[in-house]
C-alpha cells in the first residue's frame, strides 16, 4: 500500500491555482455555449495566471521541500514562477486581441477544417475562435511553473511534457498562413519529442549511476562516489534536452522556423515563458544536482554559451523577416543568459542566480512587447513581417515606432533600458567568477547584435516609406484593442523603469536567489 505523501497545500497554491484554472477551462469548453465562450475562457485563464502570480508573491520568502521531496518551493523557484505567471498573463492578453485583424483573431476558427479548403476560406473572417487555446496555454504555464520547482528528475520530465505538448498544439493554430503554422507545429513536435527522449535517457542513466532521481540524492551520490562515466553521460543527455528547450545553439535549429510559423502571440509566449522555464530547470539541475561536479560541466557550458551568442548574433544579421530576426536574437540572448549561469560559481554563492533571474524577467517583458508591436503592423495578408515593409514607419506611426525603438534598444542592451541593467548584471556575475574571456566574447557579440537591432530603427526613421513610390500601398498600422494596449503599456513602462530605477527589483531577485533541496 502507498502512504499518502505529506503535501504542503500552501506551498502548492500557485500550481493548484493555475492547474485548477486549466481544468475549469476544459469544463467550460465542454459545457459553455459556444457564442459567449471566448470572454469566459479568457477570464478563466487570466484569473488562473494572475491568481498564481499573486499566490507566489504571497509565498515570498518561503523555502521548503514538499510533496515527499518532489517539489522545492524556494526563493528562486517562486521568483521564476511569478515571472512565468506574469509573463503568461501578458501573453494570454495578446491571445485575446480581436480588434486588429479583419479576420478577428490570430487563431484559427476551427482547426479541423483542412487548410485552403472552401470552408476554411469561409471561416477566415468568422468571429468564431478555437477557444481551446486558453486552457492549453494555461496548462503550458502550469507545466512551466512545475518545471522550475521540481526537485526530482521524473517530476521535471513530466513538467517538461506538460509544458511542451500544449505548445506544439497552439503553434499550429494560426488563422493565416495555416500551412506554415502547421508545418512549424509538426517540426516543433518531432524535434521536441527527440529532445525529450534525450532528457529521458539521461534521466535513466543518472538513475543507473546514483540510484535516485531526487536532485539532493544525486548531489549526495556525486559527493560520495565522485563522477563516473555513466553519470556524466546521463548529465550530458539531460543538458541536451534542457538546452533544446532554451533554444541554445547548436540545439536551436527549430527556433526560427517555429517562431516564424506560430501565431505571433504564441511566439511571444514561447519566447518569454519557455525561456524562463528552461533556464530555471537548467539552473536547478546544474547547481542543485550537479553543483558538486561543477568542474565537469563548466567548460561545456562555457563553450555552448559562446557558440550560442556567436551563432545567434551572426545569423540574425542577414535575416529579412522580423520574427526570424527576433528568433535568432533569442538564441543570442540564451548565450548571454548562460554567462549568468556560469556566474554562480562552484559553491553557488556568486551573484549569477539573481542576475540570471533578473535577466529572464526583463528579457521576457521586452520580448513580449516587441512581438506585440509586430502584431500591429499589417498588410492585406496579415502581419507585415518583412523588414522592407517597416521602412519609414516612424513618419506614419511615430508612437509605434518609438515603442518598438525602446524594445529594440533594450534588446541591444543600451543604457537606460532594462536590457542594459540585465546584461550588466550577468556580465558582472560572470567576471566575478573569473569568466572574463567569456564576457569579452559576449560584449563583442552584443556589438554585432546591436547592428541588426539598430538597422530596424534606422529603417523606421530614416528610410523612405515602403510602397510609397510605385503607387502600391504599404503596410498599415492597426489600432490595437484594449488587451494589446495594456500589454504594450506594461512592457514599455517596465522596460524603461527597470533601466532607470532597477534597484528594488534587483534587490528582490537577490533576496530570492536561494535554492533548497
Amino acid at each position: 500500500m502507498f502512504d499518502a505523501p505529506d503535501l504542503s497545500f500552501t506551498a502548492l497554491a500557485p500550481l493548484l491555482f493555475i492547474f485548477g484554472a486549466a481544468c475549469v477551462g476544459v469544463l467550460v469548453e465542454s459545457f459553455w455555449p459556444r457564442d459567449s465562450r471566448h470572454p469566459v475562457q479568457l477570464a478563466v485563464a487570466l484569473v488562473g495566471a494572475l491568481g498564481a502570480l499573486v499566490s507566489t508573491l504571497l509565498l515570498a520568502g518561503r523555502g521548503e521541500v514538499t510533496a515527499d521531496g518532489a517539489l522545492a518551493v524556494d526563493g528562486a523557484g517562486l521568483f521564476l514562477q511569478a515571472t512565468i505567471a506574469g509573463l503568461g498573463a501578458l501573453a494570454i492578453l495578446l491571445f485575446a486581441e480581436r480588434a486588429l485583424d479583419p479576420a478577428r483573431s490570430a487563431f484559427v476558427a476551427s482547426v479541423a477544417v483542412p487548410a485552403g479548403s472552401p470552408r476554411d476560406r469561409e471561416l477566415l473572417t468568422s468571429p468564431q475562435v478555437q477557444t481551446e487555446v486558453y486552457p492549453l496555454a494555461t496548462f503550458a504555464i502550469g507545466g512551466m511553473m512545475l518545471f522550475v520547482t521540481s526537485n526530482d528528475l521524473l517530476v521535471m520530465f513530466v513538467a517538461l511534457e506538460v509544458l511542451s505538448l500544449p505548445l506544439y498544439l497552439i503553434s499550429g493554430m494560426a488563422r493565416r498562413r495555416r500551412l506554415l503554422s502547421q508545418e512549424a507545429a509538426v517540426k516543433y513536435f518531432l524535434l521536441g519529442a527527440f529532445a525529450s527522449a534525450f532528457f529521458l535517457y539521461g534521466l535513466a542513466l543518472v538513475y543507473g549511476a546514483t540510484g535516485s532521481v531526487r536532485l539532493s540524492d544525486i548531489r549526495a551520490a556525486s559527493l560520495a562516489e565522485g563522477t563516473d562515466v555513466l553519470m556524466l553521460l546521463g548529465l550530458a543527455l539531460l543538458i541536451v534536452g534542457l538546452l533544446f528547450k532554451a533554444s541554445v545553439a547548436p540545439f536551436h535549429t527549430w527556433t526560427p522556423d517555429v517562431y516564424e510559423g506560430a501565431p505571433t502571440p504564441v511566439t511571444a509566449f514561447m519566447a518569454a515563458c519557455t525561456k524562463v522555464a528552461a533556464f530555471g530547470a537548467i539552473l536547478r539541475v546544474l547547481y542543485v544536482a550537479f553543483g558538486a561536479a561543477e568542474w565537469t560541466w563548466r567548460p561545456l557550458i562555457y563553450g555552448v554559451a559562446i557558440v550560442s551568442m556567436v551563432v545567434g548574433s551572426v545569423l540574425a544579421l542577414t535575416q529579412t523577416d522580423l520574427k526570424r530576426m527576433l528568433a535568432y536574437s533569442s538564441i543570442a540572448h540564451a548565450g548571454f543568459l548562460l554567462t549568468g549561469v556560469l556566474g554562480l560559481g562552484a559553491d553557488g554563492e556568486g551573484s549569477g542566480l539573481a542576475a540570471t533571474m533578473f535577466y529572464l524577467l526583463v528579457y521576457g517583458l521586452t520580448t513580449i512587447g516587441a512581438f506585440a508591436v509586430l502584431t500591429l503592423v499589417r498588410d492585406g495578408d496579415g502581419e507585415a513581417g518583412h523588414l522592407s515593409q517597416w521602412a519609414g514607419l516612424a513618419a506614419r506611426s511615430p508612437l509605434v515606432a518609438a515603442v518598438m525603438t525602446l524594445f529594440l534598444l533594450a534588446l541591444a542592451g543600451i543604457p537606460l533600458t532594462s536590457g542594459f541593467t540585465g546584461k550588466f548584471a550577468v556580465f558582472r556575475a560572470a567576471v566575478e567568477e573569473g569568466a572574463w574571456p567569456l564576457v569579452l566574447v559576449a560584449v563583442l557579440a552584443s556589438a554585432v547584435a546591436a547592428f541588426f537591432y539598430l538597422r530596424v530603427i534606422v529603417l523606421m526613421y530614416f528610410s523612405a516609406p515602403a510602397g510609397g513610390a510605385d503607387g502600391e500601398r504599404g503596410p498599415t498600422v492597426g489600432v490595437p484593442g484594449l488587451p494589446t494596449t495594456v500589454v504594450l503599456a506594461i512592457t514599455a513602462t517596465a522596460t524603461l523603469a527597470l533601466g532607470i530605477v532597477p534597484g528594488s527589483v534587483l534587490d528582490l531577485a537577490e533576496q530570492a536567489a536561494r535554492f533548497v533541496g
Partner: protein
Amino acid sequence: MSETLPADGLLGWSWLLIALPLAGAAVLLLGGRRTDRWGHLLGTATVAASFVLALLCTIQLAGQDGAPADVELFTFISTGELDVRAGLLFDPLSAVFALLITGVGSLIHVYSVGYMAHDPARRRFFAYLNLFVAAMLLLVLGNSFVALYVGWEGVGLASYLLIAFWYTRPAAATAAKKAFIMNRVGDVGLALAIFVMFAQLGTTSYAGVFGAVGTLAGGTVTALGLLLLLGACGKSGQFPLQAWLPDAMEGPTPVSALIHAATMVTAGVYLIARSAPIYDLTETARAVVLAIGALTLLIGAIAGCAYDDIKKVLAYSTVSQIGYMFLAVGLGPAGYVAGLAHLLAHGFFKAGLFLGAGSVMHAMNDQVDMRRFGGLWRKLPVTFVTFGLGYLALIGFPFLSGYFTKDAIIEAALDRDDVWGWVLGGVAVLGAGLTAFYMTRLMLMTFFGRARWEEGVHPHESPSVMTAPMVVLAIGSVGAGALLVSVFPLSGWLEPVFGEPEEAAHVVAPAVVGLVVTAVMLLGVLAAWLFVGRREVPVTAPVRVSPVTRAARHALYADAVNESLFMRPGQWLTRALVWVDNRGVDGAVNGLAATFGGSSSRLGRAQTGFVRSYALGILGGAVLVAGALLAVTAG
C-alpha cells in the same frame, strides 16, 4: 562642512523645485498648439511656485541652523562597488542659488509675457525657459558631480536652443553653434575631472569626494582643480573661452538677462565655490583661477569700452564682472563669500540692465546700435530710472549694491598682503574705473544727447508687465548689497559651507579702499563725459581710430586667436582624419561587416527547413556535449 541631516518636512519635497518647471516644459513641448493660449501663464506659474517652495525650504533650512539636508531620490545601480545614486543636497549655498534662479527667473518669465507677446513661437520660448530653470536647479541642487554634470549639460542645451530661438536668422544659428562648441571644450574638462574622481576615489558624491580628497596626491588634486576650472571657464565665458558669450546676445533679450547674465554663466563660480575643499588643497590651481579672473575682468572691461551694440557692451560687462567673481573665489576662504555676494548682486543689477536694454530695443524696433539711440530719458522714464539705478549699482556708486560687493573683493585681494595682492587689487581697481567709463558711455549714448533715431521710429514706454519686473530688480540692485553685507550677512548664512569667516587683519582700512575705488570710479565717469558726453555722437562709427580702439573693437582679437589656434588646425586635423577614415577605417569596418555578412549567409545555409537535418544537428551536438564532458574528466 557640517553634519548632513536626512531631509524631512518641506525639504523632503525639494525635488519638486526641479520637477515643477520640468513638468511645465514637458506640457508645453508635448501639448502642441493646444497650449498656445495659456502656455506662457503655465510656464510662469511653475517657476513662481518653485520660487515660493524655495523660499519655504530656505526658511526651514534657517530653522535648522543651515545644517545641509540630503534628499535621497533613487538608486540607479547599486551592485557591489558600483553605487550610483541620484539625490539632492539642500544646503545654504544651493539655497542661495535656488532663490536667485527661481526669483530672477520668475521676474523674467513675467517680463517675457510682454516681451514675446507678438512672437508666434511664444509657447516654445516658455518651454525652453522652463527647461532651463529645471536644469539650472538640478545643477545647483544635485548632491554629486554627476547630478551637477547632468544639469550642466541641460543648461547648455537650453542655452543653445534659446540663443538659436530665432533660428531662421543665420547670425543666431551661428552664435548658438559657437556657444555650444566652445562650451563643449569646457565640458570635456568637467567630464575628465569627474572621471578622475571616480577612478581615484570611486565616488562622485560631494560628501564622498570632499571627504577623501585629502588622501590624494598633490598633483592629482591640482589636476582636478584645473580640469574643473576648464569647465567653469567654458560655462562662465572666462578667458580663453570668453568669445561665445557676446555672440550669444543673438537670443531674445530675456534670455540674455536670465541665462547669459544672472544665472547660467555664474555656474562656473558655483562650481568653484562648491569645490572649495578641492581648491583649498591646491595653491597652484587657485593661482590659475586668480590669473584667469584678473585677466578676464580686464579683457571684458576693455572690449566693453569699444562696442556700439548695447547688448554686447552689457555682455562684455558680464564677462568682466564674472572675472571679479573668479578673482574672489580664487582667493580661497577669504574670497568665497565676497565672490558669491557679488554674484547675487550682479544677478539683480545685470538682469535689470538687460531687461532695460530689452525695453529700449522694444521701443526702437529692435535696434541695438547705441549710435541710433540718444535722448531717450524723456520717452522711456521708467526704463531710464530703473536702468539708471542698475547702472549706478554696477559701477559701484556709494551705498548701492556694487559698492559693497566689489569693494569686498578688492579688500580681500589686498588682504593677501603680498605683491600679488597689490597687483590683483590694482587690476580690480583699474577694472572699476573702466567699468565706470563704458557704462557711462552707454548711458550717455542711449539716454542723453540728441535723438539720433532712424526714420519712422516712435519710442514708447513698455507695458507694465515688462516694467514691473524691472522695478523689482532695480529695488534689488539698490538694496541687495547692503542687505547681504550688513542686514542679513551672507558670510554668516554660508558658514556651514565655508566655515567660520576669519577676522582678517586689513592691510588697508576699508574706508580708504572705498574712497580710492570711488575716486577711480568718478574718474571713469568723468572720462566718459569728456570723450562722449561733451561731443556729438556720430551716427556711424569713425573708421580712423587708434590701434588701441581697434583692438578693443575686435575684443582684443579673441576670435582671431581662436580661429588661428583652434579652428584652422582643427580643420586640418578633420581633413586628415576624414582621409584616414575613408581609406583605413572604412576599409576595415566594411571588411569586417562583409566577413560577418558572408559567414552569416554561409551559416544560414544550415537552416534548410528539413526536420531530418535539424535532428541530425541535434544528434551531432549531443555527441559533442557528451564527448566534451567525458574529455574533461579524462583530461
